[in-house]
């Protein structure tokens, strides 16, 4: 069964497109942070990317089937790490999300939990085999994702908690959910909405309402939405050379959550569309890898990555163009930040892993 695994089977094309997006991200971080106290962030981002690539290679050589065999332990460890945050986490601006690590760095477990959820969901559905999805299967699959999701929600970190949702949805969809089941759950979710709104923290509620009518609170939460819209809109077709929104600091945190707005202002519709195209190519390439995966589990793993990546793009770009509320979700591969970069490359490492074994069996 063992077969020589070679770099020839590595998806170099995928890596090239990924690195193109990263490169554009680094350039935009440099431009957006110049003359601010964040100046030099693009250098740090380069280090993160280099570290990400290295860990991607490492991960691609650990057989993903072995990983899936041990996924229960990883799942338990991730629940434990979320528990640790709940108890010992550093409180910052009213939320407990970080664990202080020796050496002054901070660790946010909710990021790598995402990765383990992809594996856990894949393992669960791969083991089901049957085409028909029964209600108990449905509920069990939901619970795998719901437990860590609720724990992250309690931190409270609505944005990250939401990113767990597409993993479950993708799993259920490919696992053979019926239209009837989907509609029932959607209906239930719709009924729960008012209740959920009630549970949200005031600042989260404020963000939602300010999304509905940003002018109502143009200095508070609505400020970010309005400034982002102005940044994107003033970019025009070819981009604004002054890019005053980004460079005069009207746009908040242009290097992280609003990097796409900064990019769209500087490079216009043409530039923004180019980036979107790159992301689309990456997603299509990933789906193709899922189709050629050696087994059911492999397909589920890769499609889990597709789900998370598409959701991030949908929510982040959607927020920047005013279709979605401000949730604090970064744009993967472009936004500045170690956790996010590392997650993407580790996820790609697993995708490579699946692809390199496509001829096994």
């Amino acid at each position, binding site marked *: 069964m063992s077969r020589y695994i070679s770099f020839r089977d590595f998806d170099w094309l995928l890596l090239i497109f990924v690195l193109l997006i990263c490169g554009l991200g680094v350039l935009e971080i440099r431009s957006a942070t110049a003359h601010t106290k964040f100046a030099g962030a693009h250098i740090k981002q380069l280090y993160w990317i280099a570290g990400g690539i290295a860990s991607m290679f490492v991960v691609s050589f650990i057989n993903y089937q072995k990983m899936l065999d041990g996924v229960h332990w990883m799942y338990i460890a991730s629940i434990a790490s979320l528990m640790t945050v709940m108890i010992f986490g550093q409180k910052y601006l009213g939320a407990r999300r970080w664990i202080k690590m020796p050496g002054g760095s901070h660790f946010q477990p909710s990021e790598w939990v995402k990765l383990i959820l992809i594996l856990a969901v894949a393992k669960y559905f791969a083991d089901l085999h049957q085409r028909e999805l029964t209600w108990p299967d449905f509920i069990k699959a939901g619970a795998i994702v719901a437990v860590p999701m609720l724990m992250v929600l309690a931190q409270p970190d609505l944005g990250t908690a939401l990113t767990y949702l597409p993993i479950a949805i993708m799993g259920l969809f490919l696992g053979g959910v019926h239209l009837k089941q989907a509609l029932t759950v959607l209906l239930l979710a719709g009924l729960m909405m008012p209740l959920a709104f009630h549970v949200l923290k005031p600042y989260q509620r404020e963000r939602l309402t300010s999304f509905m009518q940003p002018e109502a609170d143009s*200095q508070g939460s609505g400020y970010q939405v309005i400034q982002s819209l102005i940044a994107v809109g003033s970019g025009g077709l070819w981009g604004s050379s002054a890019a005053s*929104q980004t460079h005069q600091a009207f746009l908040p945190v242009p290097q992280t959550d609003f990097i796409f707005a900064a990019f769209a202002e500087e490079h216009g519709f043409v530039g923004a569309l180019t980036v979107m195209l790159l992301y689309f190519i990456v997603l299509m390439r990933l789906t193709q890898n899922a189709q050629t995966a050696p087994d059911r589990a492999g397909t589920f793993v890769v499609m889990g990555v597709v789900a998370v990546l598409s959701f991030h793009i949908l929510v982040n770009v959607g927020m920047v163009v005013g279709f979605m509320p401000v949730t604090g979700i970064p744009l993967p591969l472009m936004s500045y930040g170690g956790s996010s970069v590392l997650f993407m490359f580790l996820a790609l490492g697993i995708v490579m892993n699946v692809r390199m074994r496509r001829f096994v069996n």
Partner: protein
Amino acid sequence: MFGRDEKVSPVRLTAVQYIVLGIFLVLAYGLWRLQVMQSDMYASLAEKNRVRNVPILAPRGKILDREGRIIVDNYPSFTALLLRDSSRDLSADADLISQGLHLDAKDVKDRIRHFASMPQYQPIYLKDDITPDELAFVESHRNELPELDTIVAHRRLYPRNGFMAHLIGYVGEVSEEMLNQPRWEFYNPGDVVGKSGVELEYNQILMGKNGSRRAVVNSRGREVERLDETPAESGRQLKLTVDLDLQIAAEQALGDKNGAIVAMDPRNGEILAMVSRPTFDPNDFAVRVSRDQWSKLVNDDDHPLLNKAIQAQLAPGSTFKIIMATAGMQEGIAQDMHVICNGGATFYGRYFKCWVTAEHRSHGLVDISKAIYQSCDVFFYTLAEKLGIDRIAKYATMFGLGQKTGIDLPQEVSGVMPSEEWKLRNFKQKWYAGETISVGIGQGAVAVTPIQLARAIGAISSGGMLVRPHVASPSDYQGNVVPANVPERTQIPIDPNNWTIITDAMANVPSPLGTAGSAHLQGIDFAGKTGSAQTVSNALKAKTANGKSKYKDNAWFVGVTPRRNPEIVVAVLFEGGEHGQFAARIAAQVVKAYVEKQRRQPTKVAEKSKKVEIGAVWNSESPGGEDQDRLQGGHFSIDVAKQRLPLAVAAPGVQ
């Protein structure tokens, strides 16, 4: 493996691809809409996007006394602030700014760094109450320092000389550690909030909501057009239960002696006056107080920031005998107890002195009544021996000693009421019966706060009705979170006979018969109990004494008027006052002020002395005869003196 391991439905995989395509088309449409269809509109918005936000600070609510007289007011002043909406490097200007505003350059830079992660519209407040020359500096540097501006702020005006300072508290900038607590989660850095006293406890009511004014600024930071204004919502007024006239009387009565006074209405728990000494002047520290000034106040050995009325835990001395008497009589022991006091007695092999030996006399035959007004230690030693510590602790705890009273002021302390269980829990030691003897006269491990003592003795004088003290008037008080698990009122059963005996004995205390004869008030039904409590053991005192006031006994007095079902209870702690009667004189002044105010209220004819014309008829002996009275009539004009203390209009320094 081949058969079971079915592949995932290719139809669904393709469906995912179409869904992703759909998402991308929608997002691309969003970009198209903004960047192509509406790009002109947004470009002009970006052009105009040099909107400056200047906050409008909301004034805090005034604090009033029970009759609506002003205790804490505001006055307008200028605050210098840095606006962070420009792209300027603020740190580079810090040196010039700190020079012009007479600030420490390092402090200014620290603040700029501290605010770096805050939203742009959040300004940095640099200095409150700037002087005219600092204001002139800001005005003359508009071009060089466009980010530097001034706004009108409403600063707190507190009564002068630390009048009522402990009860009122003070305000300050919300600190970083506070912001991490759930209570302050939704406040912003730079907000001015209550830091102690009612300013802290009722911050929610007193604090307003800041507004803001938006204006378009040019690239150099000059305002060129005003846009809109969100007015500030001022904070609500807070009415206290304190009576300003009584507070003035209490402040004057304590003078600059160390200690505390609490005056409370034992019928409903309303605090009428509260004084603590030494005091501090909250006006002295600006809203943003410098670090040196602050540490000087905190590290002062006399602890001027401590509100002794609720935070001093001291031995109650003989005032505790009222609790003892109640316990003894309710348990049926003290009624028929007679003790001969020869200046002391031996218990458990140790000789305990009565205070009276210091005057070279003895009390002779003592019953419960005489034991109270003469404060005979031997009687209460004997009673303590008979009751035992746990029964004493039971009554003391019932009347709220050794626990928080639940007053609506922050940082109240609980004091200590020892018992067998307490000693086992805290010292892992058995209680020695000998320790009970000292507890009988309010020494030993007993530690109470003045407010606890006022509440407990007020309750006994009221026939057992124990109330929870509070400083805000009921309407505001209900709106606030109830501070502790203390019921608003508790009825503790006291036999009417016992009640009469104890209260009558207390009425004898400020009389020639009692221990506080010099505090006698003519024409006022004034009752109470003196106390003097050692601060260190007698042995230590003998070694170091030499008249050093540091180790002088604390004088206590808790007085009420009238003796039964009183309208007011006054607890006085006079630190180093040596004898209870000195505290009693202070309490008498407060009680006198109270009664005089009550008596004058129905007839408000307070004008200057004036002549009153009256007519009258009377009998007088007839000048000629001896046996006949003669009716006479006449018309008089007499001087009516109306020289009384004028009522206060507002707290001193706030008019």
